[in-house]
Each structure stands twice: as C-alpha cells, then as structure tokens.
C-alpha cells in the first residue's frame, strides 16, 4: 500500500513537471491569504480579483496560490509559513489582523517578500505595507449624497472606530457639506467587517430614523439591498454591487488591487523589490468609482468633475478651512493635511453629531 502510494505520488510529480517543462523558466509563485471567503463579493473577493489580474498579466510566468477564510491568530501564522515553505516568492497578507503573524513569519523567511494590507508594522526588510485612499471615493459619494438627499440626512454604517473608517466618515461629510452646508449624517457602529444580518438591521434602523440615503463601510451587499426594498438610494462598497441593486446603487468605491499587485510582482521578477509603504488613491488607479447611475445628469456631471479633480491631484479632500467637531481649527484656508496625520485620524470634523466610541 505504502509503495503504491509513493509510486503514485511520484507519477503525479512527473506529470506536473511534464507540463512545466515546456517553459524556459520556473514560474514565480505568487500567494495570498484572505480573511474571508473569495465569494463574499466584497473585500476578499476584490483582493482575489487583484490576484487574478496578476495571473492574466503575467500568464505562464507566474503561478498563483491562496488560502481563504484564514482566522486571524495562530492559524494565520501557520498559513503564512506554509505558503512561504511551498515556494512562494511573494505573499500578500490581506487583512489587518495578519499584522503580527506576517512580521513573525517574515523574520524566518528573509528571502520571501511579504506585503501586508492596511497595517503599520514593518519590522523586517522583507515586509511592506500597502493601503488605498478609499476616503477619496467617499468624498465623491458625499458630494452625490448632498445633492441627492431631499431631507439632507444620510445613514452611515460604520465598522470599527479605526483611523481608516473615521477618515472615511469625515471625507464623506466634507463632500456633502460642499454642496449642502447643513447636511447631517447618522452613524451606526456595526462592529463587524461583514455580517449581512447585522448590516441589514443597521440599515433598517437608520431608514426608520428618517435617512433617505445609505452608505456603508462594511463589506456585504445587505445594506444596499435593504435600501432597494425601502425605495431609497445607496452606495456599494469594495466592489461594483450594481447587479444586487440595479435601481438603487448610485456608485461604488471599487478596490482595484490589480495594478499594485502587478507592480510588486514585476519587482520580484526583476529583483528590484524594496520595502515600501504605499498608500495609493485614484491617481494611482487603486481606487476606482463604479459607473454613476440612478442620478440626474447634473449630479452625475458634478460627481465626474470632482473625481477628475482628485484624480489629477488638483484637489485633496482634506483641504482647509476645516474645523474639528468641537469648533477648533484643524486646517487653515488652503492648507492640505499631511498623510501621516490623516492615517492617525481620531476625531470628527465639525457638523458630525456623533461620538467616536471608545
């Protein structure tokens, strides 16, 4: 039995070698771990799309491999170690909670490059971090919401009170205030990244409180679907969700990780990979707006203009004058916020009637 097993395994190995023999060079192995299932149509799905873009771009020159639904903690450390040992040259760890495991495994595999999304620890030469300026898209959404909401009140389903989410709320509000200075936003903290039932309940509660537009920083399609049932408008999240709510979605912030992944894999192939901390936005093509739908032409035009201004670098959503919630001045007229300051944002801007949960 054992002998048969060994000979079969050997045969399998020979077979797989046979298919590879046609190529001049072994393919570069590119790997990823996802916190959710790749079928979530949100966050993990988009990261996997980025990996598929890598495969499409490089073809036979790369081989992709991934582990989905990896729990944050010791399981993540084992998953990363397994990938590193399986011959991966570069590993994308795509959730914040993979931060410590990524750095621990990186210490043991100095020849493997690690890319950690949304974190801040780069303890070893072979760890880079990357994230996207989703708040640029949220500013555009705010402009649209300010124009589209008849009552001037939006509902915002937030996940966790971390800087990324808080800067998103602020950017959304600044966008809305730019067209309607009296705009209000009601915020529900869902304390989850993805939980369709909880997100749907939050959306229902917000609509019952009288909001007539919904946006979210959680990953499922549920809030948009509730908005569709109740006949109000909403925004998609992370991917284009138009097929889940064809008459409801105004636009969506699409996380396009493809360009970054292709660039980094190219660097590994060329041998030019270096540690970096990349925070790309619309300009770099990392943040893309889904088509503007279900809105009048003038709103669509304004949204496109705003997007173009951010994309060209002409306009930064965090440009003064901006006051903090308590009325104190944050940015003077014309002053632009430093990235480092935005990345640690822990306060609301003026006009938001909510308290950051602590």
């Amino acid at each position, binding site marked *: 039995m054992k002998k048969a*097993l060994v000979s*079969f*395994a050997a045969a*399998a190995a020979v077979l797989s070698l046979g298919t590879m023999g046609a190529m001049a060079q072994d393919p570069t192995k590119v790997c990823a771990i996802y916190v959710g*299932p790749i079928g979530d149509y949100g966050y993990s799905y988009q990261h996997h799309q980025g990996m598929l873009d890598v495969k499409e771009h490089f073809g036979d020159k790369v081989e992709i*491999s*991934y*582990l*989905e*639904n990896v*729990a*944050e*903690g*010791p*399981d993540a*450390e*084992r*998953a990363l*170690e*397994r*990938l590193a*040992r*399986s011959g991966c040259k570069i590993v994308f760890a795509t959730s*914040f*909670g993979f931060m*410590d495991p990524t750095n621990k495994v990186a210490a043991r595999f100095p020849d493997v490059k690690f890319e950690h999304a949304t974190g*801040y620890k780069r303890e070893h030469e072979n760890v880079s971090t990357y994230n996207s300026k989703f708040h640029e898209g949220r500013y555009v959404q705010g402009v649209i919401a300010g124009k589209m909401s008849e009552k001037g009140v939006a509902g915002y389903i937030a996940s*966790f*009170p*971390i*800087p990324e989410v*808080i800067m998103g709320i602020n950017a959304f509000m600044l966008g809305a205030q730019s067209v309607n200075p009296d705009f209000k936003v009601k915020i529900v903290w869902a*304390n989850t990244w993805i939980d369709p039932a909880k997100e749907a309940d939050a959306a229902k509660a917000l609509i019952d409180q009288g909001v007539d537009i919904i946006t979210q920083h959680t990953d499922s399609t549920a809030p948009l679907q509730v908005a569709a049932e109740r006949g109000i408008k909403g925004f998609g999240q992370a991917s284009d969700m138009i097929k889940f709510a064809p008459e409801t979605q105004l636009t969506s912030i699409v996380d396009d990780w493809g360009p970054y992944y292709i660039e980094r894999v190219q660097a590994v192939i060329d041998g030019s990979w270096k540690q970096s901390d990349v925070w790309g936005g619309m300009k770099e093509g990392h943040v893309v707006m889904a088509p503007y739908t279900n809105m009048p032409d003038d709103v669509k035009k304004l949204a496109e203009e705003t997007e173009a201004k951010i994309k060209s670098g002409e306009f930064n959503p965090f440009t003064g004058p901006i006051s903090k919630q308590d009325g104190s001045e944050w940015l003077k007229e014309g002053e632009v916020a430093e990235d480092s300051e935005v990345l*640690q944002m*822990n306060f609301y801007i003026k006009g938001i009637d909510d308290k950051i*949960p*602590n």
Partner: protein
Amino acid sequence: MRIELVKRPQHSALFSALSPFIALALTLVAGAIMFALLGKNPVQALYLYFIDPLREVWSLHELAIKAAPLILIGVGLSVCFLSNNWNIGAEGQFIVGAIIGSILPVLFPEFQSWIVLPIMLLLGIVGGAAYGSIPALLKVRFNTNEILTSLMLVYVAQLFLDWLVRGPWRNPEGFNFPQTRSFHEFAILPELLPASGRANWGFAFAIIAAIVLWFLLSKTLKGFEIKVLGQSPRAGRFAGFSNARMVFFAFLVSGGLAGLAGISEVSGAIGHLQPSISPGYGFTAIIVAFLGRLNPLGIVAAGLVLALSYLGGEAAQISLGVSDKVARAFQGMLLFFVLASDTLIHYRIRLVGRQAAPAAEAPHGNA
C-alpha cells in the same frame, strides 16, 4: 415505516477495536470519490491530507500547536461527560481563562520578572475554573440545565472579551485597532524546541494533563466515583458519593483545563488579546472528547487526528486549489464515519412497521 436504533445485548470486542480503522477506511473511500468528482487526483489528495503534514518537522510543530488546546480541553471534558455533566461551555471557560491570565501583562506591563508567567498560568486556570463553577452552582442550587447555562455563558465571555479589547484594555499605542498591547518577553510561553519550530509548552501541558487524568480515571477511587455517578447516580448515593460535589469537581476540572488552554494559546501562540482568540476550540474539543471515547489517552490521539485534518486541508487548498469548504466537508465525513461506526457497534438498525407499538425505554438521568 420508520427506523429505530435498538441496543445490542452485547457488542463485539473485535469490532470495537476495529471501529476507528473501519471509519478511516470508509472516509478514505468516500473522500476519494468526492475528490474524483471534483476532478482532482484522489490518491494525491489523500496523500496531501494524511501524509504530507507529517513529513516535515515544522509541520509536526504546527500539529502540536493546533492539537494542544483541543487535547487540554478534551481531557477535561471527559471528566464532565463521564460523570453525566454536560459542559458545552468550554469555549467560554477558555476565553475567560485567557482574559484573567492576561491581567498582568496587559494592565501591569512594567512588572517584568520570571514570576509573571507562572502567575499568568495560575490565574488562567483559576479564571476558567471560576467561570465553569457558575453553571455548576446553578445546576446544584436551582437544578437548571447545565447544557443551556454553560452554552449561554460562551456568548457572554465572547462579548466581554470583545468589549475589553475595544475599550478599556485597548493598546494605547495601537491607532484604535482592537488589540491589547503585545505581551512582554516574560509573559510569553516558551517554545519546546526553539531550534526546529514554534510548538510551545502548551502541548506539554496537554500531555501531562492527559496522563494525570488517565491515572485518575482508571486507577483511583475518584475515577470510580466519577463513573458510578455518571452511570447510576442512585448507586453512587448508596456508595456514599455526593452528586453535588461531583458536579463542582467536574466543572472545576474541565473549566480549569480550558482556562489553562486559553492562557497558553494567548501567551504562547498569539502574544496579545484580540476580539477573537479561538476558532471554536471549545466546541471542537467536544468532538475530540467523544472521538477519543472519553479516554484521556484516546483523546490525545483524537486531538492529533483532528489537528491533522486541519493541516491537511490547508495543504490540499494550496496544492490542489480546492476551496476550504471541501476541506471542511472532508473533515465532516471523517467525524460522521467514526461516530456512525461507534454507534452501530452498540446499536443495530431495525425497520419498524406502522402497526408495531413503540417500545418505550426508561429515560436516563438523575432518578
């Protein structure tokens, strides 16, 4: 027409011994069919599942890490289940052990000494045991159903941990992310053989606990008491054993071991507290306890087998590109066949016609 399970008057010793192997063989066959239907090479898939993770030293370490909490909790639960106490809340006792054990490194990070780790482990045991004593107290005093109370307390523990790491225990330098500060070096459970992999002392604790409980159950009067009270509380009372005291004993032992597993996991494998510290070890350990037939040494083997199925599932995901759902389905098949084989050794299936009167069986429980 309906199907009934009828208890066999006596069961075959031969088949009892063969049962795990029959189950394994059936799993291999069913698994091979599943992989073949998915268009994957079944022999390669099974090889990846069961052999590949055992071929390398680092992987054996990972096996020990994954199995340690399952074994530690599982052996504790065997005392509960043998004495007819249905503790379903080991997950909660695991979490509370981890929380109480983490008090020193989280709240007093400047207190750094070799004494920190022993205190943490002790506090972990105390925390888990104290949390386990709640359903025990409710059962003894108010005759509440411990299945419900212990299960409900799991959610309380999970939400309490969630609140702690987002609120008062959050790392002040952590940009509002929901984590406590990282444990300092004196609060980290050391690795067993640092040169070859990262398995920590948690695995040693699990083995020691299994041996001690095996001795207790099979060689001592206490072990006899546990089994008598489990099988026949009335006979136990005639022998002068106190059922109330046994309820506390069982919950304190299993809660304490779950707490030790919790603090070992946090201190050895994670290094800080975060909203989720267990992928359901407390629940999986229930399966492990029964797979090991409530025998502590059997539970060691069962814990290793279940851990192997997790590791094999990952290897199959990477090498074959199958979804993690396939890995779970395969694990489910393994458990199904093991439990079905065991059941069919003790029971036989009888088809009952409509007219036959149902044979009422006397209910078990505390008469």
